[in-house]
């Protein structure tokens, strides 16, 4: 049989331009991850229990001992911090999910397909964003139930929640890099906690930074978790919110600009 006369069947595929492929493929991956949340709801339930326990502990167990300057009620100080803390710890889910797919060989299959190189990351982080919309709404309801009140306006509240979600999206990309780098779900979780704990606890999330030693205050005031928590607090409690919000958004954009390309670069070469 001569190869020159043999007919070679062609693969049944459609060529799409880069942008269209990126959007379609990201949507397909996001859909796949959202099905996971729906089909294994235990994952979602357990990932929301921890922040609820934190609300109850800090509101009722520690809250009595914490004095906030300016006569602000502790529950009003706490809840903006809790929103931020919840999405920061939740971002570990991005690392765990990607590490699981890497370990199972699924990412390897994706990498042999003619799909967008950024879609696996974009789809995963978008699905995690959708989860965070649900989680933040739930935390707002829990906060309301324990006495948290918005002192400004609905518009300010929406702006505050949008900043929380933007920050959660940025943190997802940070943890996408972590997940791909360690390649194992248990290790991802173990590696993330020691980095996250100082960011969440050496911050203005649970206590005013002014109560910390001077050497810690510089870090605790300017690190992203505090900046975002402060911006959310100013938006829902009142005060000049413009500069705080701008700083928070600047952190989010900065994190995204560094970690999104880094994650895609790692995806292309790691698997």
């Amino acid at each position, binding site marked *: *049989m001569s*190869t*020159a*006369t*043999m*007919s*070679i*069947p*062609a*693969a*049944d*595929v*459609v*060529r*799409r331009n880069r942008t269209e*492929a990126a959007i*379609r*493929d990201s949507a*397909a*991956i996001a*859909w*796949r991850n959202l*099905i*996971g949340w729906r*089909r*294994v709801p235990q994952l979602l339930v357990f990932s929301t229990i921890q922040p609820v326990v934190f609300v109850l502990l800090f509101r009722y167990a520690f809250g009595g001992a914490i004095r906030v300057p300016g006569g602000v009620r502790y529950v009003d100080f706490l809840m903006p911090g809790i929103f931020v803390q919840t999405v920061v710890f939740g971002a570990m889910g991005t690392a765990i999910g990607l590490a699981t797919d890497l370990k*199972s*060989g*699924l990412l*390897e*299959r*994706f*990498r*042999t*397909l*003619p*799909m967008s190189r950024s*879609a696996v990351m974009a789809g995963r982080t978008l699905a995690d964003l959708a989860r965070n919309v649900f989680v933040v709404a739930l935390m707002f309801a829990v906060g309301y139930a324990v006495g948290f009140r918005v002192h400004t306006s609905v518009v300010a509240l929406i702006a505050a929640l949008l900043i929380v979600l933007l920050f959660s999206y940025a943190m997802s990309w940070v943890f996408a890099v972590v997940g791909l780098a360690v*390649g194992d779900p248990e290790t991802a979780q173990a590696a993330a906690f020691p980095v996250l704990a100082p960011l969440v606890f050496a911050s203005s999330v649970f206590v005013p930074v002014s109560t910390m030693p001077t050497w810690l205050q510089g870090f605790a005031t300017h690190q992203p978790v505090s900046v975002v928590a402060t911006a959310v607090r100013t938006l829902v409690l009142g005060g000049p919110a413009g500069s705080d919000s701008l700083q928070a958004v600047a952190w989010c954009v900065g994190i995204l600009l560094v970690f999104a390309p880094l994650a895609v670069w790692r995806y292309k070469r790691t*698997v």
Partner: protein
Amino acid sequence: MTITTSPTVAAVEAVGLRKRFGDTEALCGVDLHMQWGEVFALLGPNGAGKTTAIRVLTTLIRPDAGRASVAGFDVVRDAAEVRYRIGLAGQYAAVDPILTGAENLRLIGRLAQLPGHLIARRAGELLERFSLSDAADRPVRTYSGGMRRRLDVAAALVQRPPVLFLDEPTTGLDLQSRNDLWATIRELVAEGTSVLLTTQYLEEADRLANRIAVVDRGVIIAEGTAATLKSRLGATVIELGLADEAVAARSQAIVDKVLPAPAERENSTLRITSDAGPRVLIEVLRSLDAANLTPTTLSVREPSLDDVFLSLTGRHTETDTGHNGSAPEVKPR
């Protein structure tokens, strides 16, 4: 628009491929040439470099040196073009355990850029073909190992790729699943798919492949049709177990007089390979009987990978070469 593939170039071509992981040289200059319509088998033990070769050819890793192309497209420079033309199924069933079988195939269909109207239809056809229709709407985590593997191979076929890569497709499968998969691979080949597969089993390469390359320590040490490889080796392996090493040595001296080629001795076992098995067996036993020697054990079998290996390298393969359930090859990162 469909992706056309030029028949005047080779399906797969590799020249001087090298790849190193730390201190381990996984590929030390591999040359390959696979024609359209061929089934080409890379045969070798664990750690020989088979999986690394597949990973280079499917654009997953870059070679340190050398070049390779699939359907005329370079696997590094034109990786995107290569991905439009290949399917890969590995020894790990790379499917999502939470999605159902049908959802997995539809997801891969979308990501493989299948036209929308074909996605559901193709998924249905493949589920039918791989006897998974009944389980189509069950989450994959409820599937058996054999079902997962079938789904994995089905997923590699969603876009009907002209070149299919199968990395140890039947490792760890039971006999029935293995035979079913072999039948499916033959059907695909009959429909015009070119297949490059890796295997640890000579029998598998023999049953499926037109051409076999034996891989050892990152190089191809022999290449040819199953018939030529076997004729170099002899079609039958006769093993005689003797009472002890001294008896075995005496027996070796006796049988060597009646054999065209000398027998190999390992401790108290003699191994004779021949393409005239039955006649050789009679002569060997007759000569031993004349010297009042009786073997304690006797086996007559087809040559295994270990025998091919022994004859090519003078070494045994480093792992078990039984036909069921050997450990999967460690995937280099």
